[in-house]
Each structure stands twice: as C-alpha cells, then as structure tokens.
C-alpha cells in the first residue's frame, strides 16, 4: 500500500482537488470518489452514472478494474473523472 497525491478534476465541477489515492485501489473505486469529493453540487451529474477516469491530457480512460499501482500515475499527476 502506497499513497500517491493526485490532482482530481471532475467534469461539470469548478474546483481542482488534492487527494491521495492508494496503490491498491481500483480505478472504479477512485471514480466513485467523485460523488464524495464533489459533494452535493456534483451528485446530480454523477450519481447513478458510470464514471470513467483518465490521466489528464490523454483521451483513453483506464480500465475500471485496473489497480492504481498499474496506472503509472506519478505524484501530482492530473486525473480527469467524467460520466460516460
């Protein structure tokens, strides 16, 4: 288990978030964080929808079952979370 700080941006939101992701977490678990860190303001956009996660400035999302340890994320990399 290792924590990596990343910059999270959620589609429809206005804030940039600093969170620590665990190397053992799956991408799907990180995507679900959008409901939590986006608080009430993002729930209408995110709740009940499938959320994808990709590294900032890339186009392809990570597979939902992939572990964070396998994504190659470095500290302070950007992560886009968006409904698909």
């Amino acid at each position: 288990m290792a924590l990596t700080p990343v910059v999270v941006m959620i589609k429809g939101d206005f804030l940039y978030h600093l969170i620590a992701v665990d190397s053992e977490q799956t991408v799907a678990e990180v995507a679900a964080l959008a409901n939590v860190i986006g608080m009430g303001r993002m729930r209408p956009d995110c709740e009940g929808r499938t959320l994808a996660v990709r590294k900032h400035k890339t186009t392809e999302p990570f597979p939902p079952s992939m572990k964070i340890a396998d994504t190659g994320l470095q500290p302070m990399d950007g992560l886009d979370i968006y409904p698909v």
Partner: protein
Amino acid sequence: MLERSEWYDIARQTNWTPKFVTKEELFPAEMSDPYDIPQELWETYDEPYKVSYSEYVSVQREKDLGTYSVKAAVARQNFVQKCDERWRAILKFHFGGVALAESISQLGEARLVRFGKGPGMRNMATFGLLDELRHGQIQLSFPHDWVQIDRQFAWTHKALHTNEWGAIALRHLLDDIFISRDATTTAVMLTFAFETAFTNMQFLALAADAAKAGDVAFSSVISSIQTDEARHAQIGAPVLSLMVKAGKKKEAQKILDISFWRTWKMFSLLTGMAMDYYTPVAQREGSFKEFMEEWIINQFERQVLDLGLERPWYWDILLDEIEFFHHAMHIGSWTFRKTLWWNPPGATGPEERAWLEEKYPGWGETWGRLWEGYSRPILEGKEDEPQSLLIVCTMCHLPMIHRPGTWPFPLRTYNYEGRDYLFCCEPCQWIFEQEPDRYKGYVTLNERALAGEIMPPTYEGAVKFMSLDNEDAGRDGTNYAWAFDNQAAKARKAG
C-alpha cells in the same frame, strides 16, 4: 504670510549634494531606482496634489473628529448588535483583510519616503505614510469594540498572523508589491496599480452599499480613508510618466502588468463576494461587474493609455474573469466555510438568483446548477463536509478554479529547476516566469500538506492549521435560508 504656492516648490527641493557619502550610497539602485532614470528627470517629478504639513494636520484632525464622533453616536444605536449576519460578514471580512494590510502599506510608503529619488515624491509619500498609520489605527479601533458582541471580530487583528488561506494569499501579495521592491517599482505597484485602480472600488462602492444598508459607521470610516487614498495614490502616475520619458516604457509596462493582475485577483475575492452575494439585494448599488466596468475597464484603462502605456496584455482574460472568478470564489469559500473567520451567506435564494441571472446571463445554468446540488443534502438535514483539499495557485495562492461547463480543465504546470509549479491562469504563470528566482522558494498550502505540516492532511486538518478549529470557524450566515426559500418558491410555483 506667504501663500503655499509661493514657497512650496523651493522648500521641497531637498536633493542636496551629499558630502559624507556618495549619491550611489545614499540612493542604492536596488533600493531606489534600478531603472537608472536620470536625476535631471527625477528633478522634474511634479506631484499633482500639493499640501503643506500644517494643512495636512488640520484636515486630518477634522476627518478623525468626524469619524470618531460617528463611532460614538453609532455605538449608542447598537447597529452591529442588530444588523443582519450578512452585513456582519462584510464587516469581518473587510476589517480582517484590510486593517493590517494598511499597516503593511506603511512600510511601502516609508520606502518611498527614504529612497524615492524625486523630492516631491518623498514629500507626498511622507503624507501617505501618515495616512496609512491612520487607516491602520482607525480600522483596528472600530471592530475592537465589537469583539465583545461577536468573537470573529477579533480576526481584524488576528487574520494576517495566521495560516488561513486568504491571509496567506494576501500576505504573499503585499510582500510582493508593497514591501520587497525598490522605491520606484513600489510607487507604481502600491500607489498606481493597487490604490488608484482598485481601492477606489472597494472603498467607494462599499461605502455606497454601507450607506444604503444603514451602516453609518462603516460608510463613514471607509469614505474618510478614501479621501486620503485619492491623494497619496497619485504618487505613482508621475513615476510611470518619468519612466516612459526615460525610455523605460517596457519596464514600466511590465511592473504595471504584474501588479495590476496580482491586485485584481485579491479584489475579486474581497469586493466581488461582498457586492454580489453578501450585500442584500435591496441594498446593492450595482453588480461587481458593473463597478469593474466603470472603475477599471473605463477609467483605469484611459489613465494607462494617457500615460503612454498600453493596456495589459491579458486584458481579454481579465474581461472573461470578471464574468466568473468571484462566483467561483464565493461558492468555493462557502463550501470550505470552516476555513473562514466570518459566516458567509449562501445568498442564492429566489430573489438573489433572479438578480444574478439578470446581471450575469447564464449564471443559473452554471453556478446556479451547482448551488441546487448543494440544496438537497441541506433540505434533508445533512451537513455536507468537504472530503478533499483544494489546490492553490503558486502565484495568487487562491484556490484553483475553472468555469463550469468547459472540459477538460486546463492544468497549468511550469517546471523550473526540476520542480513543477501549478498556476490557476496564464497571467499568474507569466508573472512567475518573469522572476522565477523571486517566487520559487515559496511553499504553498498543498506542499505543506504533502510535507506533513497539515495533520491530518484533510479538511479538518486544514481548519486546525488555519487556527479555526474553534468557535471562530465560519458557518452559513443565514442558516441555509436560501435553500429553504428556493424550496418554498418551487412549491408555490408547482401550485
């Protein structure tokens, strides 16, 4: 008795020839004038507003008498005890942000007094320094009486000594443009960019809103201060004019562009939220955008062009930010409200929403939509707490935000000497790139969290780091009345 005009020009020519030190030792370039403006040009510095010491003392005495009389009269009316929490939020925010900033500006004026190369500039700055002493004292004095009514007023003196995020942002700005540069640059940054451009708006616009709100004391204090600002803010324009004459237009433009942008960000937070959210709709004189257009876009731009300079290169970015930046600061600071020393009202009930949509077409689809999202847990009686830390900009130290609706967000990073720096916008990054060695060592809130200084590295840890893990921590100023009012309005509409 001679008239002032008969003796003033002779009496203030104090550029004597030093005998015991060289001129370079008396006025070192790094403290006085790194632009090497010829002394003959400095001799032509002509202050637009001339005043003698006896005139100054006489006028200031009258001003203080008037303002402190109002203070005594208002104290008997218990205005602060009775006023709306929304108005109290403005008072707490203003005094906490401004009172000690006035004290810091004393150091900037003092640098002009000692190291300014124009005799008239030194003379005006002497009065400017005395002005700032008065401004610091008067704005500490008024809220001091209110601490017994509401302990958050103690942050008037406390805020700038803490690690509260807004206080860090303000200190970084003031350190940069008030007290850590040479006298020539400080004259431009402090008196022209900060005071001429923006304090007008904060003080005059807010004085008008205060008068409408019935806050005679606040209106009187800030109007009294603004009469001083209007005088000593005139130090900078002749300096810019001299720089242009000396062939230093490029350098003049650069220091103006840096300080103007840095100041804009802070006033967008300070004035923008107060005018468009905290002030009740019935008492609003106009929107923040309207005041920006009148005071900055029209008046300041004309002044810059008249001096032979250009509008800052980022003018279009500024026009765009006027539309949204303070909306983001309001909802962002409200979201993280425990990190504030005042109680911000959500202030997005039916009446406010209609006003905001009229002043900022499209507000409802962007910001209004986010506020609606916040309503649901509130109406269900749940307290929705942040579960992340915000990212702050390396330059303005305000939370990094982006206009909702565009995707993906830009994530501006700049690598310098192997380290990545994050910026909220192009002008903030440009300022860093102009003098990276000046700014590179500063440790942001995020870096403090990563370094283990904020423990635990969570919202609660940040609140503690900011000395707000007590009764001072902000809460919604109207107990979420805006959310319940919206619900009631929807129910009425549904019949």
